[in-house]
């Protein structure tokens, strides 16, 4: 409660919270808000020559290259993209934190082995894995989320590993050991909180990149399949139209940006509130 109140006092955090709320409401309320079905390819949604239509009163944000209402697609796309951006990315960051912190903390064979495993995973062509999975499984939103988590955790682990190596050498860790703290306690109570800034950077910037990564996977055939909209595939489908129909890139791009940014504002505020060394700042 205290956290929330402190947050509401900061204008940027408030802004972030509002946008996050709006986006979530958009996703939940899509069927009621959307003026059209997101899949409806309207014959008059294209010009006579077959070009998508710019924003107008009829199509608020214009139409796409199949004559579908962009606004409606963005609303429904929020559902997919939030799952990808929050769940998939969240899992990736969580796994990355865990593996990174363990391999940076544990000395000797186990830590080394863990890190080499991460190195192996990192060296491994993730896209190939995605392609094979696409060919072997029936792509669904959750499989996509899983693949993304599988692909992304490695990088987080790498960074966290390096940071942990630095942290472990700090004196207060020695002090904790002298108190008899077990490895788990040192890891979770004393090291993890120091990794919060990194986690927040990845957790929030990662939203944007995973949403786009989902589109790449769509392209490889493992993403959500057409006509189900996602912010990423809306951009990808029409990115070459950025001159002919800029709205097709601009609006989804802006909403991805805004969402990631808002989560970041909230995350930053949260970090500052939780980080005592930053206390007292405005």
């Amino acid at each position, binding site marked *: 409660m205290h956290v929330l109140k402190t947050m509401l006092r900061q204008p940027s955090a408030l802004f972030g919270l509002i946008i996050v709320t709006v986006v979530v409401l958009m996703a939940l309320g899509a069927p009621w808000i959307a003026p059209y079905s997101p899949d409806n390819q309207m014959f008059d949604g294209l010009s006579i020559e077959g070009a998508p239509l710019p924003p107008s009163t009829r199509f608020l944000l214009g139409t796409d290259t199949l004559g579908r209402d962009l606004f409606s697609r963005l609303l429904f796309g929020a559902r997919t993209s939030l799952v990808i951006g929050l769940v998939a990315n969240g899992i990736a960051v969580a796994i990355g934190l865990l593996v990174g912190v363990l391999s940076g903390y544990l000395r000797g064979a186990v830590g080394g082995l863990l890190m080499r495993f991460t190195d192996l995973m990192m060296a491994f062509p993730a896209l190939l894995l995605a392609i094979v999975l696409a060919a072997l499984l029936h792509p669904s939103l959750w499989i996509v989320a899983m693949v993304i988590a599988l692909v992304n955790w490695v990088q987080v682990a790498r960074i966290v590993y390096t940071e942990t190596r630095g942290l472990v*050498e*700090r*004196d*207060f860790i*020695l*002090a*904790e*050991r*002298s*108190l*008899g*703290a*077990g*490895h788990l*306690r040192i890891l979770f*109570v*004393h090291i993890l*909180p*120091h990794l919060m800034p990194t986690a927040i950077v990845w957790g929030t910037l990662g939203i944007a990149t995973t949403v786009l990564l989902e589109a790449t996977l769509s392209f490889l055939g493992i993403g959500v399949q057409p006509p189900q909209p996602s912010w990423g595939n809306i951009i990808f489908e029409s990115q070459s139209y950025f001159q002919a129909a800029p709205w097709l890139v601009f609006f989804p791009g802006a909403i991805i940006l805004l969402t990631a940014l808002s989560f970041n504002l909230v995350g930053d505020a949260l970090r500052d509130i939780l*980080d*005592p*060394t*930053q*206390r*007292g*700042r405005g």
Partner: protein
Amino acid sequence: MTMSAPTPILTVRNLCVDARTPEGRQRVLHDVSFDLISGETLCIAGESGSGKSVTSLSIMGLLPKASLQVASGTIRLGEKDLVALSNRAMRSVRGGDIAMVFQEPMTSLNPVMSIGAQLTEAIREHQGPEGGAAETIARQMLDAVHITEPVRRLTQYPHELSGGMRQRVMIAMALSCRPKVLIADEPTTALDVTVQAQILKLMRELKQEFGASIILITHDMGVVAQMADRVAVMQNGRIIEQGDALSIFENPKQPYTQELLAAVPRLGAHAGNDAPPRVSAITAPSVSVSPAPILQVRNLDVTYGSPVRRLFRGMLPAAAVSEVSFELRPGETLGLVGESGSGKSTTGKAVLGLIPFTGHVVIDGQNIAGLSARQMRPVRRSAQMIFQDPYASLDPRMAVGAAIAEPLVIHGLGDRSERDDRVAELLRHVGLQPDAATRYPHEFSGGQRQRICIARALALQPKLIVADESVAALDVSVRARVLDLMLELQETMGLAYLFISHDMAVVERMSHNVAVMRGGRIVEMGTRRAVFENPQDDYTKALMAAVPIPDPRARHIA
């Protein structure tokens, strides 16, 4: 108010500093005013947390912007008002006109820069000598602060130095540019008395040679007596009394000042006793039987650096500790004294299995060599450590209350409310308000942090405590309280202390037995009485002689 006529070089007037806390602004300095006359040494004494460090940081313009802010007042250095000075102009003042030695040496040195780089940098910045000259000066400065092997030290990193050595590096750094004003915040707190004497001498020389003025912040009335031309006593963010040294020592007006002077331990005060003074009413159960030792150390050796690295670097650093053997029985205190870098902290860490060692260490009947963290767990319950550098040994992201409760949580003692009660009790024991529990380490003064560490170590009611300079940063009144607390615990619970300190008077007061270390070895060990009243080793004798006497008339450092 002083009535001295000579021109002051630094004038502080009505300085008020506010702290921003979640509960709103709180004033930590109230109308502090004083002058520093050119060529004099002003000692600021006062209880821990009274605002000494904040005052000095304000002068340097180095208050942490996030939490502390000058609310009003002026600080004049010659023509310049430092409070209003631009950042740029302030830069040339810092380091050049005014230099400062900070209280916590570990965190005040950059961990990723070599000692040499940190030293020469300051020299180059303000004196701009060419190439190698700065290095020469740096080496000379290390020599001046009596660091052994100065050439090698220049290439070392802060974590490779002992606490005292770091402090000396800090001093060398501050002195290297021959500042007009030197602010030294507890500069000798972590130093053994011989080095302390040398440093103090150095500061005097500097003062004489360059007409520099010194603000010396210290809790050690012995040092005050040896150094001060004038003294300011602080309490609760105010200067409650200031005047020239003689009048303060001989004619203290404020009750606090009187109390402060009364509490000063004097070397030899306990001569003739075998054991520390009794502080509790309990009648002695201790001497009756001589129980098995709680700590047995035989042939302890510690060498830093990984074997692989040593192999490839080709140079084997000398062992930090070698062939150390001693025993410690319940209810006993072994005082460990010795020069800085002699391996005291290393010994302390090794006997608790915190760094790799070879040899034999038995705690409470359990040989700890090669035990896993899990196997060590029960041992840790009975053996605790208070680290030399309190700031570095506290998790900066953990509230102080949680930090103190940490050992209770780790060992699964008590429920939440019980723990809270215990934390409050411990805080009170070490002279802090229970409401400190919700604050974070960086919001405390150096002495306050040290008390927090003590509270943490006491939380488990261990049988053995390794106390590494654990009262060094405390002002005498608080120190006396804490020492009494430690003695009381010893008496009631049969606690054993491995008491590492440079302060001979404190060691004398606390110990049953004393060991003197030098160069990683124990050069002399015996009962307190034997060592203090009849020292054999030359080094021990030198130590005794160097202890500052808290009487300005009896200055022996010159």
